[in-house]
């Protein structure tokens, strides 16, 4: 097996954008490994529109958005292997993978980009009481069945969780003739984008019940009924609020988890909040030369931001290889999250290694109104912006001028916080 300087694990939106950017940065020796039988990842089943407004200034569907990047990868002649499963990543960046043509093989790249994406939280991880009949799907599984395989998973549907995929599937199932009775959300706010609540639920008169969860699933072979109940401030069901819905299908849209088995086996340090690798401003993980981008790093709302982040990872990986895989020592400023900020990506910034700007992405832990996002270098406020509404379902981005950090050489750390506006 010939060796490659850069191996990208995953041929979805992150992997594709990383490959294109690394190529544009001058790197020619790139290989993408993809486990599915085509490039594009999850975008292939996201047939709805709304992708690409930032990247292409037009509104595309998922397959079209993926198609743009696949075209570039093919035009640039960047090699990729489909139907290829990466089995292991070692701390020395040895990639062990297999497919039908090559059998089991190992690669020893100079740099690796983790672009494995994420997966859905399944029923087993949700502790839902009740029977275990057929008819319980994650929303993404149902999406694949309807949009790619051409099967309808059910006719009378209840959806638990108001993540974007659940909202999108509420509309999709309705258009295909199913009766979507209710979307129940445990939290007092939706986990999905506002526009999806408008155009996927409101448009079709599908009720969204906040602070509600499933307390029973009935059915021996197939789901026959689902009971939901309101929950109190501690997420405990309130007796007497139960409502029983006769249905044959329960869809789960209860969060996405970055898929980091390979990162873990390599010994890459993970952030317990995001379940993704901890990275510095260069999107480099705790292992030098191993970079991460996209939903494997932290779950994004918009693929446009995945592409942007992955492009940066691609350029960084190309730069790392061009510099002979050596990195200078730079002072790192760890980022502390305060006052409702749940996490940041990156977790540390090395001003000496950063370009002109550093992109900080983060999420808040609750719905906040009339706040100010503020960034401090040590005790000095270097950035602040008013935000009328902040919600956990919407990722926040701050683009920080690196000079603002180098102006404060005394600072030992950075704090990202919310303040009264």
């Amino acid at each position, binding site marked *: 097996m010939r060796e490659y300087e850069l191996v990208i694990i995953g041929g979805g939106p992150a992997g594709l954008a990383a490959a294109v950017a690394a190529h544009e940065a001058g790197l020619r020796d790139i290989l993408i490994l993809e486990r599915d039988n085509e490039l594009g990842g999850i975008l292939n089943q996201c047939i*709805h529109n709304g992708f690409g407004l930032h990247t292409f200034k037009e509104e595309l*569907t998922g397959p*079209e958005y993926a198609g743009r990047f696949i075209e570039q990868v093919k035009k640039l002649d960047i090699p990729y292997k489909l139907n290829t499963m990466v089995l292991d990543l070692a701390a020395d960046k040895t990639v062990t993978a297999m497919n039908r043509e090559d059998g089991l093989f190992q690669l020893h790249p100079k740099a690796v980009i983790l672009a494995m994406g994420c997966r859905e939280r399944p029923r087993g991880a949700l502790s839902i009481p009740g029977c275990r009949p057929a008819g319980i799907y994650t929303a993404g599984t149902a999406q694949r069945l309807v949009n790619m395989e051409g099967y309808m998973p059910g006719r009378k549907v209840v959806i638990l969780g108001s993540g974007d995929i659940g909202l999108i599937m509420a509309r999709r199932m309705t258009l295909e003739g199913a009766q979507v009775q209710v979307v129940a959300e445990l939290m007092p706010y939706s986990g999905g984008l*506002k*526009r999806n609540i408008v155009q996927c639920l409101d448009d079709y008169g599908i009720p969204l019940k906040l602070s509600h969860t499933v307390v029973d699933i009935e059915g021996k072979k197939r789901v026959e009924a689902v009971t939901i109940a309101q929950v109190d401030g501690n997420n405990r069901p309130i007796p007497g609020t139960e409502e029983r819905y006769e249905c044959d299908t329960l869809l789960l849209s209860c969060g996405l988890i970055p898929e980091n088995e390979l990162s873990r086996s390599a010994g890459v340090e993970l952030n317990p909040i995001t379940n993704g690798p901890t990275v510095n401003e260069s999107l480099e993980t705790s292992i030098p030369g191993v970079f991460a981008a996209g939903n494997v790093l932290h779950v994004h709302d918009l693929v446009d931001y995945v592409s942007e982040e992955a492009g940066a990872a691609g350029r960084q990986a190309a730069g790392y290889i061009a510099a002979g895989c050596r990195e200078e020592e730079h002072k790192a400023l760890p980022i502390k999250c305060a006052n409702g900020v749940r996490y940041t990506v990156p977790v540390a910034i090395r001003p000496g290694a950063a370009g002109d700007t550093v992109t900080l992405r983060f999420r808040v832990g609750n719905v906040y109104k009339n706040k100010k996002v503020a960034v401090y270098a040590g005790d000095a406020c270097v950035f602040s912006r008013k935000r009328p509404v902040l919600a956990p379902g919407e990722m926040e981005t701050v683009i920080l001028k690196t000079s603002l950090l180098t102006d404060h050489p005394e600072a030992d750390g950075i704090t990202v916080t919310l303040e009264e506006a």
Partner: protein
Amino acid sequence: MEEKNLICINCPLGCPLTVTLENGEVKAVAGNTCPRGEAYARKELTNPTRIVTSTVKVRGGTLAMASVKTAGDIPKGKIFDCVKAIQDIELPAPVAIGQVVLADVCGTGVDIVATKNVPVKG
């Protein structure tokens, strides 16, 4: 004067819009961060439209289905007619992104176009 609150659906930002109406006529739109927000508010209160996306069957392709969309937005009231009109379509492979699958769906003047490349199998 009457005020209506809308959420702009043009892009995932979802700007909260406040529309001031006088005798059913839009007088002012606030809360939008781009001109598309104002256009959306005016349209949503007079003639709401949506892009519709779905799938059609493919014969002899590497994939069983190809995704499709309305090339532009269509009146909200025609969404179900539109989905019905494409439900029995079966395309022979190959299918190319942008290919017209059904012209002038339901008299809207808008075409249904493919959004996925499906090569011939084998």
